[in-house]
């Protein structure tokens, strides 16, 4: 089983949580542990290895973020070390795409640039240049009922996604349209990248490690502590 971290970004009204709920809800998952609450959920899917045609299980750990503008500064805590990002906007609210675009920019700028990390604790120098970003336009159901409500044209979003090299789909969490497909695509993409990485087997370097050690712990230590 392969495990990936997926971070969920987007304005507070776009229905981020609904998308994940729809994806996780009503599906039995033997790999899911009991959860504390809805802001962190996990769900696994099956994909096919394109070469061997064998089933591969991919487990997503889904990290929700607070979409309100005032909590924007918290986001780096969440997207650090993420393998994938789901950036959500509402196709009936033009502004929400602008917000989504700003998230995409921030992700491209910050993630993968591990030297930019201000936190001195527990630095994982994970190189995240391979972050998979999937743009999602939610609330397609509203537009199907009333085409007038659409504020973001599909073509515009498609063009933007192609330019920025993002995956893209319009979905409806309410009617469950395209939800599974979004995660399936991300899973396949992540698997492809992971396979490439394994092929390249890039050499790791231990940056900034300090060189100290105690004498090797030994079973016959003369300086017994009980004396």
């Amino acid at each position: 089983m392969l495990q990936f971290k997926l971070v969920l970004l987007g304005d507070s009204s776009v229905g981020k949580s609904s998308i994940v709920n729809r994806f996780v809800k009503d599906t039995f998952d033997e790999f899911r542990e009991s959860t504390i609450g809805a802001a962190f959920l996990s769900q696994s899917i099956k994909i096919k290895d394109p070469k061997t045609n064998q089933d591969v299980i991919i487990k997503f750990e889904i990290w929700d973020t607070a979409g309100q503008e005032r909590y924007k500064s918290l986001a780096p805590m969440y997207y650090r070390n993420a393998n994938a990002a789901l950036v959500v906007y509402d196709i009936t609210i033009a502004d929400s795409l602008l917000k989504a675009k700003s998230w995409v920019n921030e992700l491209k700028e910050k993630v993968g640039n591990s030297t930019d990390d201000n936190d001195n604790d527990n630095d994982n120098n994970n190189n995240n240049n391979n972050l998979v970003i999937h743009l999602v336009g939610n609330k397609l159901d509203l537009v199907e009922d009333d085409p007038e409500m659409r504020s973001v044209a599909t073509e515009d979003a498609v063009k933007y996604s192609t330019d920025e090299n993002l995956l893209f789909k319009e979905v409806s969490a309410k009617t469950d349209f395209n939800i599974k497909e979004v995660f399936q695509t991300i899973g396949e993409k992540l698997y492809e990248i992971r396979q490439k990485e394994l092929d390249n087997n890039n050499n790791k370097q231990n940056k900034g490690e300090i060189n100290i050690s105690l004498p090797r712990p030994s079973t016959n230590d003369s300086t017994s502590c009980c004396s």
Partner: protein
Amino acid sequence: MKLYLSLEEGTEVNMGPDNTVLEEFDPLRQKNNTSLTNKKNIHENSLKVSNIIQESSYTNNITHNSNKNIEEETDNETRDINDTYINFKLFIEQLRHQQADPIVRYTKSFLHNFCTQRPLWTVKEQVKLINDFKIFIFNKFKIYEPFKSLDSKGFKNAQEGMEKLIMGKLYYHCFSPLLKRSLKIDIDKEHRQDLIDDIKFTNKCKEYRFIEIQHLENDIEIDKIPYMKLNKFVELGCDELNKINRFKSPRDKILCILNCCKVVYGLLKHIADSDTQGADNFIPLLIYIVLRSNVKHLISNIRYINRFRYSDLNTGEELYYLSSLQGAIKFIELMTSESLNISNLTEFNQLYNENQFKLKEEREKEKKKEKEKQQELQKNQESLSVSLDDLTTSMATMFSDLISSYTSNQSENSNTENENGDSTPSPPVLKQISTKEERMEEERAITKLIKKLETKERQETLKHLTSMFPDLDKEIIKDVCVAKKYNIGKCVDSLLSLFN
């Protein structure tokens, strides 16, 4: 384990400034569970693995105890967490296994070297040494029984157990707020920075302690909560978070955070449907609780977890909530009136200024109290220090006795175990002490000593108060003392109000 019970009952005994902090962080103060943890074995004794092994599973039920008051739905989930909770007792039994002896020796050797080679390692050194040891010993698990034949779940439990064991022992060497008092040396810059940041954060929380949940979130969902209910949950959440200082191991501290988050969800479930229980509503509530909780040394705690939690053991969920708490802390650290949702700025500013005024008053009061305390201390120091030394020595001897009897019996036991082919771990130490009478004798002596100290201290408190309030009847002062459990600060407050 009468001794520890009596020590707990006697917490009003002023154990001197050095010990109050340690006591405060001692889990045994909250749990009367049988165990041999000790308030005194900070240095030499901290090296004795055979001793720490006795620190039995006092935290095994923290998830259980904590959420009792929340609605049933959350309670069920609490139990789920408990299922995945580590079984420390089992790990200790495995360590007692004869074939696990090399593991015990490696651990002893490491703890000994860590504590003696240098008075205090820098943060980076500590992190590297402890992490290296974990990697080393986890590899050794694969060689020695009973660890060798454990399945992956059992192996993980052993890893958790080992982390808890060594961090419990090295806590006084690694947790920044305790360093100065336990090691009695000047601490290095980075550890000191933790303390500085603790104070900064506490002050920041106090600066904004008057804000309401609406200032953090104007979403309609949160507005719907009845004020009383909100307060009750917030209080509960704060309690859970505050427990973080009671535990030594990184994992136990994380559990306190998870329990706090569970309380937040308990609240969210009452006001939101499943689609609005995500981070949008969770984060503001968490920030509100952190702001209200007044957890001491929260920054130090988080850094301690980040430094000494073995990264392979962290699950995604633990990391998520740890990150959320760090996010909440960061938000508070950077908070200004501009980061809040304020409908009426004039009103807000008025509240802010009122709070500033109150804070100033409180600080002055505190200073005054501190001064009184200092004087009190100076007065009592001579007489107290002598008797406290007595107590320490006698307890220390008792511990070394325990250990020696334990170790000698241990080897004998191993032999008989072999002959009988019986692999059950040897029974707990206490049965192996030379004679029951001797132990009782010691316990009685110590209890007596504590009583004596307590009486002495109370008399002095009374004397001090009567001299402070010469016009008041001595009997009245005594009554107040009893009512206020001889807490000087509280006594003075009550007496002052009486006097007026």
